[in-house]
């Protein structure tokens, strides 16, 4: 496996220079590896993990998950419709699912009205979308591996120990 990818998988947030030190590579080698990962469409981009509820300007942000049933098409299955849906800026993630519905869509909006509007005006009106079931998220406890706001004890390790 690409040594840089291995480190990225650990989920830390090392700078290129730090990755270079840990992996025992030069900075330019790390950059080359990152370029390669992008070329191979493995590395799609970088995103911070944020607790939006703590910032006044974003505290009203609303997230929802939507179960969407769609009708598959001859030849293309679910893909054409899923990709079409996924392109909306409001959509953060979109997955094809097994089970009782077809697509699971994560959306984000500045307010309840915005998200509701997106669902009723955009999403459900797309030809081929049979039904939607929207669940608003009330509170986030863990996001992408990060716990929010729990008092995980700050380390109490002794500084010097046998």
């Amino acid at each position, binding site marked *: 496996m690409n040594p840089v990818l291995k480190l990225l998988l650990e989920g*830390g947030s090392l700078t290129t220079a730090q990755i270079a*030190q*840990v992996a025992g590579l030069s900075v330019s080698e790390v950059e080359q590896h990152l370029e390669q990962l992008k070329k191979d469409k493995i590395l799609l981009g970088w995103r911070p993990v944020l607790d939006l509820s703590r910032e006044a300007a974003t505290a009203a942000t609303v997230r929802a998950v939507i179960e969407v049933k769609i009708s598959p098409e001859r030849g293309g299955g679910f893909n054409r419709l899923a990709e079409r849906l996924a392109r909306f800026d409001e959509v953060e993630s979109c997955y094809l699912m097994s089970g009782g519905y077809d697509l699971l869509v994560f959306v984000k909006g500045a307010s309840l009205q915005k998200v509701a509007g997106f669902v009723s005006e955009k999403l459900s009106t797309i030809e081929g979308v049979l039904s939607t079931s929207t669940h608003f998220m009330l509170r986030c406890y863990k996001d992408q591996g990060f716990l929010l706001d729990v008092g995980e004890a700050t380390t109490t*390790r002794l*500084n*010097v*120990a*046998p």
Partner: protein
Amino acid sequence: MSNDPKRWVAGHVAALPKSGIRDFFELVAKMKGQDVISLGVGEPDFVTPWNIREAAIFALERGKTYYTSNLGMIELRRAISTYVTEHFGVDYRPEDQVIVTVGVSEALDLALRAFCNPGDKVMFHQPCYVSYHPSISLVHAQGVAVPTFAKDNFALTAEALRAAWQPGCKVLMLNLPCNPTGGTCDRVQLEAIAAFCREKDLLVLSDEIYSELTFEGTHTSIASLPGMAERTIFLHGFSKAFAMTGWRLGYACGPAALIDAMMKVHQYTMLCASIIAQEAALEALTRGWDSVLMMREQYHRRRDLVVRRFNEIGLKCHSPRGSFYAFPSVAATGRNEKDFASGLLLEQKVAVVPGSAFGDNGVGHVRACFATSYEQLIVACDRIERFVQAPQK
């Protein structure tokens, strides 16, 4: 009559030297609030994996608050027996060849108390874990230090053992991979040590607490070598591999008659290990291995990082095959290990432990624990580099 309360302290306790670690601990404590990066620790930076913590919470919820049998919960002893067979290739009966203890610390103490008469000689390789020699003194036995050397990457050699051996030696304490050196022995070296133990009829106390943290090749337990299980007490615990130092849980495995002797001491002094820790340990053994592998992989990369940096900086350092300790030489800096450690702490705010805290054979070296995040390790190495390059005060 004297009024000094010290008159009540037993002679052999009064005579114990103050731990070099303790001295250094106090020095570091004085620098509180000063952004010290500590490589002076002896435990993982990882918190115990959540499934293990959760199992302990569940145990409490179910009211598991009682004593267990002296030897420990039979379910746990079964799990230990299976684990030791799978990972070390030695079979112990859960019923009478396994005892659960309060850390490897208690297991070591039990063994020394159970097997040493006053005056018996106990060999141990040095530099070594700080408790070994004092634990020997506490049972009125006599410690015989066997040096290990940087040129051998601090592996114990049968030659050094033979050179140090004296009439009256009864026990050999082994700690491979070793705290503080990270030294290990390969199978061939171990076989030579085993042959020597059989020749001199030594009982081996093998403290393999760092064995899961072996980065290259596989760890070999001396107990798995022919003719050795019957003369070896295998000591192991959860502190390091499972990041469970604060739980205080370990175990010893060995011939039934010897475990029974240890049990006698244990039942009168400790009764049993904490049931909550035992419940957590059961979870660790049944569902904790993936976490061990994840942590080992990180230690491995951290080791490569610090060892490479130390050597680049000019602190000659062998790559420890196991443990989370690097043990570089500071000789090239022209300082002794104590001046190096205190200078580094005061000038650059990085704590490492002077090698002499681990015995005379640790002079000229410092112990740097790499169980710390990449970011911190990089900053620590940068600071050490600045310290080494700065003109000496």
